[in-house]
């Protein structure tokens, strides 16, 4: 940059006229900037700041995630800073002071006492002006400018620089938030088991739903076999939200898996996990429920680290909360001994593990949510049970918190094999599905009226898939019928992005489904939609 020759060693920019000042402010708030991507915007703003304030260097330093350092992120005239990834501790030196005091700082004459960063000194910078990057009162970084000749920056310079800083702060925060969400969602997807392991004699099903606004949290579930042949089932909830919670969740999940190879006692496993977290992760806190299912599957050993109790369902009875000593959460305080509880899993029973997002609602006591959950737990196929629980407890609401749900079911011996159909999602498949349903329902002793009711209710769910689930490419219509005692459980599933029904005929379809069977649950997630229809045979309707 060329300085005006007559200004000499110092430039008096306080004498600019008001019109001139307005023009300069406009330069920084120009709507053109909004059209640029964040990186281009940052580069452009730094360039304009350099011209406007007639300085030699500009730099943006952002707070690192630990909030203890500022890291050089974008510079003009000080490229070494970004290349070397300069880190300035909060409170130390020039930039560190601005971040700590959250106000502009002017240095008329740079020296060892007021500037820490050797690059600024080696570069020969003589005077500096810096302002904080603030978003909603939080410091997210620092913007500073410097000159190679001594200069007395004044209040107007500081105001102008603050204007640029505000612009940068907002755009940067927006970008960081977006990037964090994307990263957290990707992390969550990579850490939750895509497909649960297949365990002979047990049925497993799980759900994960982000909290309000699509925000990912620290909930997870995990199922894996142990060397002894036992099965380890885990549900956990790391306190916090967004990327930091997801990252901590990933580490905890790995730690649980590692310790499970050292001990198959869930209480001891949680104790080891707690010791690790307290040693290495001082700011992490989590609740975890760990269950180890015996090889013969007749009993599960359960330990809880401050986690809501699991719910057990047994045939013919209401779901019940399992009495588990809620030992302290992971990461809270050292615990010498943790408790383990035996939970019987008779044939036909199920165990439901979940995170608090499932049962907690604002302005409602936790007991109400727990009651709703125990009422929804009726033993049955794991997928259907998951669908019923999500339908009853979440429905069309959005939970403020994220929700993880894991069902372990020990299917009863009903003697009746399930019916599984997979047909192209086309109108002409409907007839074939009806024929198969009639024949199956006849064989399990359903009355003519019950057959009609079920065939029509399932038919409506199928027609929905045919009409709404898939685009022109088509897809698969899956129908699954199972008997649980005298209860018929039908699941109609698609793997499409279901569009909302349109027109009044679909409203009639829903009316029919609800009028013809005892229960209807619609459960949608990223993999598709499941409609679960249940009807108990032999009841007077």
């Amino acid at each position: 940059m060329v300085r005006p020759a007559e200004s000499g060693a110092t430039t008096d920019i306080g004498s600019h006229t008001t019109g001139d000042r307005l023009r300069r402010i406009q330069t920084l708030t120009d709507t053109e900037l909004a059209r640029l991507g964040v990186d281009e915007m940052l580069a452009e703003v730094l360039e304009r700041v350099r011209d406007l304030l007639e300085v030699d260097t500009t730099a943006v330093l952002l707070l690192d995630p630990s909030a203890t350092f500022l890291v050089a992120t974008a510079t003009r005239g000080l490229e070494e800073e970004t290349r070397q990834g300069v880190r300035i501790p909060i409170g130390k030196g020039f930039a560190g002071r601005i971040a700590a005091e959250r106000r502009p700082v002017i240095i008329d004459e740079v020296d060892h006492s007021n500037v820490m960063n050797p690059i600024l000194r080696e570069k020969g910078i003589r005077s500096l002006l810096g302002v904080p990057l603030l978003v909603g009162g939080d410091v997210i970084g620092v913007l500073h400018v410097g000159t190679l000749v001594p200069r007395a920056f004044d209040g107007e310079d500081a105001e102008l620089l603050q204007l640029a800083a505000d612009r940068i702060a907002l755009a940067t925060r927006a970008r960081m938030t977006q990037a964090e969400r994307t990263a957290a969602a990707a992390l969550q997807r990579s850490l939750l088991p895509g497909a649960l392991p297949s365990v002979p004699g047990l049925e497993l099903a799980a759900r994960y739903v982000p909290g309000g606004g699509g925000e990912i949290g620290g909930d997870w579930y995990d199922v894996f076999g142990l060397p002894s042949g036992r099965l380890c089932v885990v549900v956990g909830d790391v306190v916090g939200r967004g990327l930091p919670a997801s990252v901590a969740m990933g580490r905890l999940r790995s730690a649980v898996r590692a310790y499970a190879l050292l001990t198959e006692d869930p209480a001891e496993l949680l104790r080891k996990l707690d010791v690790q977290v307290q040693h290495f992760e001082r700011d992490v806190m989590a609740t975890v429920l760990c269950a180890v299912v015996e090889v013969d599957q007749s009993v599960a050993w359960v330990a809880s680290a401050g986690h809501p109790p699991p719910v057990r369902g047994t045939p013919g009875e209401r779901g019940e909360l399992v009495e588990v000593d809620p030992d302290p959460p992971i990461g809270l305080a050292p615990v010498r001994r943790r408790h383990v509880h035996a939970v019987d899993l008779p044939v036909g029973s199920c165990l439901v593990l979940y995170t608090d997002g499932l049962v907690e609602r604002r302005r409602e006591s936790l007991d109400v949510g727990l009651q709703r959950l125990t009422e929804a737990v009726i033993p049955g196929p794991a997928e259907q049970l998951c669908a019923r629980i999500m339908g009853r407890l979440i429905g069309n609401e959005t939970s403020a918190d994220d929700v993880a749900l894991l069902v372990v079911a020990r299917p009863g011996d009903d003697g009746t094999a399930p019916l599984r159909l997979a047909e192209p999602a086309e109108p002409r498949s409907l007839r074939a599905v009806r024929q198969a349903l009639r024949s199956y329902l006849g064989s399990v002793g359903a009355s003519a009226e019950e057959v009609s009711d079920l065939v029509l209710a399932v038919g409506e769910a199928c027609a929905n898939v045919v009409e709404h689930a898939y685009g022109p490419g088509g897809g698969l219509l899956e129908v699954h019928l199972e008997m649980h005692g005298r209860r018929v459980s039908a699941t109609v599933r698609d793997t499409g992005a279901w569009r909302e029904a349109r027109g009044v005929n679909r409203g009639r379809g829903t009316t029919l489904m609800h009028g013809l069977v005892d229960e209807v649950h619609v459960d949608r997630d990223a993999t598709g939609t499941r409609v679960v229809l249940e009807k108990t045979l032999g009841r007077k309707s």
Partner: protein
Amino acid sequence: MTEVSIDAREPEPGRWEISLGGEVDLDNADAVEQRLQDVITNRARSVVLDLGGLTYLDSAGIRTLFTLANRLELLQVGLEVVVPAGSPVRKAIRLVGLGEVVTVREG
């Protein structure tokens, strides 16, 4: 394709008796609607639609009945729907309230 039979008679001038048999679903509802429109000519003064032969009628088929009812009302043609006792489609007709727009005889 889902199979349906449509028999239309005119026992006295202007009075149509139409019997549906088989199944009506999403697959053939549009075709059934078209057939009914073709069968009921301008001479019709009243129509009796007998659903006694139907073994399946879904909401797409029911929409056809509502459409027919609207059209005949505009043409000032009387419509009566007959659903005999024991018909598998009787419950569906009740649930969606077809009786609120046309006469439904549960004969």
